[in-house]
C-alpha cells in the first residue's frame, strides 16, 4: 500500500467520536453497567500479612449482618486451577485463581469476599470477618535478598536477558572520561482514575463479565484457565475503560472474586475495587536498583556502556521489567554490557506500567549520559548527536527509520536550547536539561470485520479497546478513508469478545496493529463493492472495477454514481473480514519510536521545592493517525514522566511488605497546577517497515525522556545529581545556596 492511498481523513485532528458520550456522563464503564437483574455488591477482605497460611476464618458475624448474601473464603470458593498454571499463553492468560487454598500470597491478598445487597452492608460486614493467619517472613526488597537474585527466564518484551558486546572492561579502562552511579527507582502504581471493576454473571458454565480490561482475548483465556471452562463460554464486555496504563492488561483479583460471588449466590455480583484495594489487588511497577558505568574518549565518543538492573518479581507471576533494554539501542559504542536480575518476592503482582523498561531505564541511563556529556565538556544535545548509531548497536540490524537527530535538533530549536542553562530568578534557581527518548515499536496480530448495512452505514467490529487512546476515533478515520466515505458513515464497535480477536491495548501496538486489520477489512469490502457495482449496473457492465471509485458514499465512474446504500440494500448487507500480522521487517530491522525532551525547572532557593516550568518534546512516531489524539497521548506520557521524576513512589514498609501510601492523597500523581504548557511537536514520517499505515507506537513514547530531562534540569539548577527517584526537596536542601540577606 502506498502512502498516497491514505491521504485525507487519516491524520486529521478529528474530534473524538466518543467525545459527546464522555462529556455527558453517558459512556458506561464497567461499574456503570446496570443489567436487568440488580447486582449484589462484593467487598474484599484483605490479608494483614504478606505471607502465610490461613489457620482459621470466622465469617459468622459478617454473615449475620443485614443484607449479606454470602461470604466467600478459600473454604467455599468455587473450584479453580492453581494460580499460575496453564500459562502457555503468558501471564495474562494463566490461571489467576484467588482464594483457592489457605495460602496468602501478599499483603492485601483477598482472604474473604463479602457479598451483600448494598455497598454499605458489604463494607461494614467485611470488617467483621475474623481471620487467623500463621504468618511467615516474606521477601519485599530485592537488595536485601540479592543472594537470591537470578536471571529471569525471559524479559518483558522478550528481549535477551543479558547482552555482552565487545570488551567492556578494556574499553572502560581506556576511556578518558568515566562516570558511574547507582540509581534507585521506586515501585509505582498506574493509578488509573477508574479503579479495577467487574460485574460477573453465570449462566450454567457460561460466564459474562463487564469489566475494565485492556486485552480481552487474554482475559477470556484467564477466566477459562482459572475456572476450567471453555474460552468460548466467557463473554467479556468492555466498551469504555477508565484508563489502563498497563494496570488492566490482564484480569485482577476483583474479576475472579466477582465470578466467585456470582457462582455462590446465583446472581450478578459487582466489585469495584476501592482505591486502597488497587494498591494491592492491582499490579504495580516494581522497584529497581540500576548501576551504570559509562566511558567516552577525549572527543566525546562513547566507548563503553554498562547497565545492570536488579528488580523484584511476584511469585509465580513471570514479569521481569527490561530496564536496561532501551540502552541497547541508544548510542553507538565500542563495548556494551547489559544485565537483568530479579528476586522473587511476596508482593502484589509486579507488572507493566506505561513504558515498562524505558520509563525506569531511560530515567537513569539518560541521567548518566548527561553526566558523561558534562564530564566530556560537550553540550548534551551535541553529545547525543555525536553518538548517534548508524545501525542497532547490539543486533547490528538496520533501523527501520530513526529520526533521533532531527528530534534533538528541532527540540533544541523549539525550546531555545542554549546548553544546560543555570540562573537565578528571585527566589528561584532555574535550570535547563534535556534527554533523548526511545521506545520499541511493536506490531501484533489482529482481526477485524466491517459490515455495510442495508441503509448504507458501515459498522466496524473488533475486540480492541479504547482506554483513552482515541482508538474509536482513529479506527473510524482509517475505515472511512479506506472506504472513501465520510467518518459519519462509520461506527466502530469495540470491547466485546463476540467481535474478531485482536491484541488489545498495550505496548503501544494497538493502533498500528488493529488499524491495519481494519484497513484490510475495509479494503476487502471496498473491492467487493466495486466488483458488485461493476456487475450490478447496466451501463457499467463490462467496466473494470478498478476504474470505479467511492466518493462520499457513492460509487462513481464518469458522470454516473451509485449510492453504496443501494448496494447494501440490494445485497441485504455485506461484510468483510481483515487481518494484520507483523511483517518480516519486525525481525530483520530494529524498530523504535524516538524523541527528545527539554525541560526548564525552578527550584525554590529556600526550601528545595521543585516546580516544572516548561517541557518541550519533539517526537518521531511515524505517521500520525490523528493529530489531536496523538498529541494528547504524548502529553499524557510526558506527565507520567513528570511524576516519575518528581512525585510518584509507592512506599512499602518493609517490616510488613505493606504499601503504606495507598490512596491518591499520599500517592502523588501530578495535579493540574503541576503541569505547565507542554510544547509538543511531531516529526512527520511514514515508516513503511512498521505497518502498512506507516505509523509507529506513540502511547508510551512521551514518558520516555521526560523524567531524565527534568532530572538533568534539576542538576543544572542546583549542581546536584540525585540518583534516587522521585527527586524531593530533601535531596536538594544541602545543595541550596545560603539564604539571602
Amino acid at each position, binding site marked *: 500500500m502506498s502512502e498516497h492511498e491514505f491521504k485525507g481523513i487519516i491524520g486529521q485532528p478529528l474530534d473524538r467520536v466518543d467525545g459527546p458520550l464522555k462529556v455527558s456522563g453517558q459512556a458506561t464503564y464497567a461499574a456503570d453497567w446496570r443489567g436487568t437483574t440488580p447486582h449484589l455488591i462484593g467487598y474484599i477482605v484483605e490479608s494483614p500479612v504478606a505471607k502465610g497460611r490461613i489457620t482459621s476464618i470466622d465469617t459468622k458475624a459478617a454473615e449475620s449482618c443485614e443484607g449479606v448474601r454470602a461470604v466467600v473464603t478459600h473454604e467455599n470458593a468455587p473450584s479453580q486451577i492453581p494460580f499460575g498454571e496453564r500459562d502457555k499463553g503468558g501471564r495474562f492468560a494463566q490461571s489467576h485463581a484467588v482464594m483457592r487454598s489457605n495460602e496468602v500470597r501478599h499483603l492485601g491478598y483477598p482472604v474473604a469476599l463479602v457479598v451483600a445487597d448494598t455497598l454499605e452492608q458489604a463494607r461494614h460486614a467485611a470488617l467483621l470477618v475474623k481471620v487467623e493467619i500463621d504468618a511467615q517472613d516474606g521477601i519485599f526488597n530485592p537488595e536485601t535478598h540479592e543472594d537470591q537474585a537470578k536471571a529471569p527466564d525471559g524479559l518483558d518484551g522478550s528481549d535477551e536477558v543479558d547482552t555482552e558486546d565487545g570488551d567492556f572492561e578494556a574499553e572502560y579502562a581506556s576511556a578518558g572520561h568515566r562516570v558511574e552511579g547507582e540509581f534507585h527507582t521506586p515501585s509505582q502504581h498506574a493509578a488509573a482514575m477508574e479503579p479495577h471493576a467487574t460485574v460477573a454473571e453465570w449462566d450454567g458454565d457460561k460466564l459474562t463479565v463487564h469489566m475494565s480490561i485492556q486485552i480481552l482475548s487474554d482475559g477470556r483465556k484467564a477466566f477459562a484457565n482459572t475456572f476450567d471452562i471453555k474460552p468460548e463460554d466467557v463473554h467479556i464486555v468492555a466498551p469504555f475503560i477508565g484508563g489502563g496504563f498497563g494496570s488492566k492488561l490482564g484480569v485482577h483479583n476483583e474479576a475472579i472474586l466477582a465470578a466467585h460471588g456470582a457462582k455462590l449466590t446465583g446472581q450478578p455480583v459487582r466489585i469495584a475495587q476501592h482505591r486502597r484495594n488497587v494498591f494491592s489487588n492491582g499490579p504495580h511497577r516494581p522497584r529497581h536498583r540500576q548501576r551504570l558505568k559509562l566511558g567516552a574518549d577525549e572527543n566525546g565518543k562513547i566507548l563503553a556502556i554498562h547497565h545492570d538492573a536488579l528488580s523484584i518479581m511476584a511469585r509465580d507471576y513471570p514479569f521481569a521489567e527490561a530496564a536496561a533494554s532501551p540502552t541497547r539501542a541508544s548510542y553507538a559504542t565500542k563495548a556494551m554490557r547489559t544485565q537483568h536480575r530479579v528476586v522473587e518476592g511476596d508482593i502484589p503482582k509486579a507488572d507493566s506500567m506505561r513504558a515498562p523498561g524505558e520509563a525506569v531505564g531511560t530515567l537513569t541511563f539518560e541521567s548518566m549520559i548527561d553526566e558523561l556529556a558534562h564530564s566530556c565538556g560537550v553540550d548534551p544535545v551535541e553529545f547525543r548527536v555525536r553518538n548517534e548509531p548508524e545501525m542497532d548497536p547490539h543486533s547490528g540490524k538496520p533501523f527501520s527509520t530513526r529520526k533521533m537527530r532531527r528530534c534533538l535538533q528541532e527540540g533544541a530549536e523549539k525550546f531555545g536550547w542554549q546548553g544546560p542553562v543555570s540562573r537565578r530568578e528571585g527566589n528561584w534557581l532555574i535550570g535547563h536539561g534535556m534527554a533523548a527518548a526511545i521506545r520499541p515499536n511493536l506490531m501484533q496480530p489482529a482481526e477485524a470485520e466491517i459490515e455495510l448495512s442495508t441503509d448504507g452505514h458501515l459498522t466496524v467490529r473488533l475486540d480492541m479497546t479504547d482506554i483513552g487512546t482515541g482508538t474509536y476515533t482513529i479506527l473510524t478515520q482509517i475505515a472511512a478513508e479506506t472506504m472513501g466515505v465520510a467518518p459519519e458513515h462509520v461506527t466502530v464497535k469495540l470491547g466485546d469478545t463476540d467481535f474478531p480477536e485482536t491484541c488489545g491495548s498495550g505496548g503501544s501496538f494497538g493502533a498500528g496493529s488493529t488499524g491495519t486489520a481494519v484497513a484490510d477489512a475495509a479494503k476487502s469490502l471496498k473491492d467487493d463493492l466495486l466488483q458488485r457495482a461493476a456487475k450490478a449496473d447496466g451501463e457499467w457492465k463490462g467496466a473494470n472495477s478498478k476504474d470505479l471509485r467511492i466518493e462520499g458514499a457513492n460509487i462513481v465512474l464518469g458522470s454516473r454514481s451509485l449510492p453504496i446504500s443501494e448496494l447494501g440494500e440490494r445485497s441485504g448487507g455485506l461484510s468483510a473480514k481483515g487481518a494484520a500480522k507483523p511483517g518480516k521487517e519486525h525481525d530483520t530491522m530494529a524498530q523504535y519510536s524516538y524523541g527528545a525532551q527539554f525541560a526548564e525547572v525552578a527550584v525554590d532557593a529556600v526550601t528545595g521545592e521543585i516546580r516544572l516550568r516548561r517541557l518541550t518534546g519533539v517526537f518521531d512516531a511515524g505517521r500520525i493517525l490523528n493529530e489531536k489524539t496523538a498529541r494528547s497521548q504524548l502529553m499524557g506520557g510526558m506527565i507520567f514522566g513528570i511524576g516519575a521524576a518528581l512525585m510518584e513512589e509507592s512506599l512499602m514498609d518493609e517490616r510488613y511488605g505493606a504499601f503504606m501510601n495507598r490512596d491518591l492523597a499520599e500517592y502523588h500523581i501530578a*495535579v493540574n497546577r503541576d503541569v505547565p504548557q507542554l510544547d509538543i511537536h511531531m516529526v512527520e514520517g511514514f515508516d513503511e517497515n512498521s505497518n502498512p499505515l506507516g505509523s509507529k507506537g506513540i502511547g508510551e513514547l512521551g514518558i520516555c525522556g521526560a523524567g531524565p530531562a527534568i532530572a538533568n534540569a534539576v542538576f543544572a539548577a542546583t549542581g546536584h545529581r540525585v540518583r534516587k527517584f522521585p527527586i524531593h526537596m530533601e535531596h536538594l536542601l544541602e545543595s541550596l545556596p545560603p539564604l539571602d540577606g
Partner: protein
Amino acid sequence: MHPLRLTVNGKPHDLEIDPRVSLLDLLRENLSMTGSKKGCDHGQCGACTVIVNGRRINSCLSLAVTHEGDDVTTIEGTADGEALSPLQAAFVKHDAFQCGYCTPGQICSATALLDELKRGEPSVVTKEKVELVDEEIRERMSGNLCRCGAYNNIVDAILEVAEART
C-alpha cells in the same frame, strides 16, 4: 432508614435511605445515574464532583441524608437540553479528556468554577483580583485529577468558555 427529599437535575425525589449512603452512591445506586464517577471515594480525586446549591463538592464525602432540600446538579444535568453545554462542547473540541473517567467531575467542577470567577472569588494564586490566566484555572482545577494527562487541554477548554463569557 431515613427520609430524604432533594432535587437532582431539576427533578424532585422523595426517598427512604440508609443514612450511610454517600451522595455519590445515592446518585449511582439508588437513582441509577452513573455519570458521576467513583475514583477514590475519599475526596482525593474529584471524579465525583457534583454541584449542590451552586457549589461544587465531592459527592463521595457527603452523606446523602445531609442534603435534605438541596438542589443537586450532576453531569447528566449540565447539558443545554439535548445540546452539549458550551463547556462540554469545548472539552470535545480541545480534546480535554482521554479515557473520560474523570471528565464528568472535571466538567461539573469547571461549570461551578465559571460562577466562582464571575463572583470574583479568590484562589491561592489570585493577587488583587481574579484574572483569566492559565495559573488561575490550573490552581482551581487541581482538585480534579486526570491520570491521562489532559490538563493543558482542560485549561484551554475552560479559558475559551470563560473568555467568551466576559
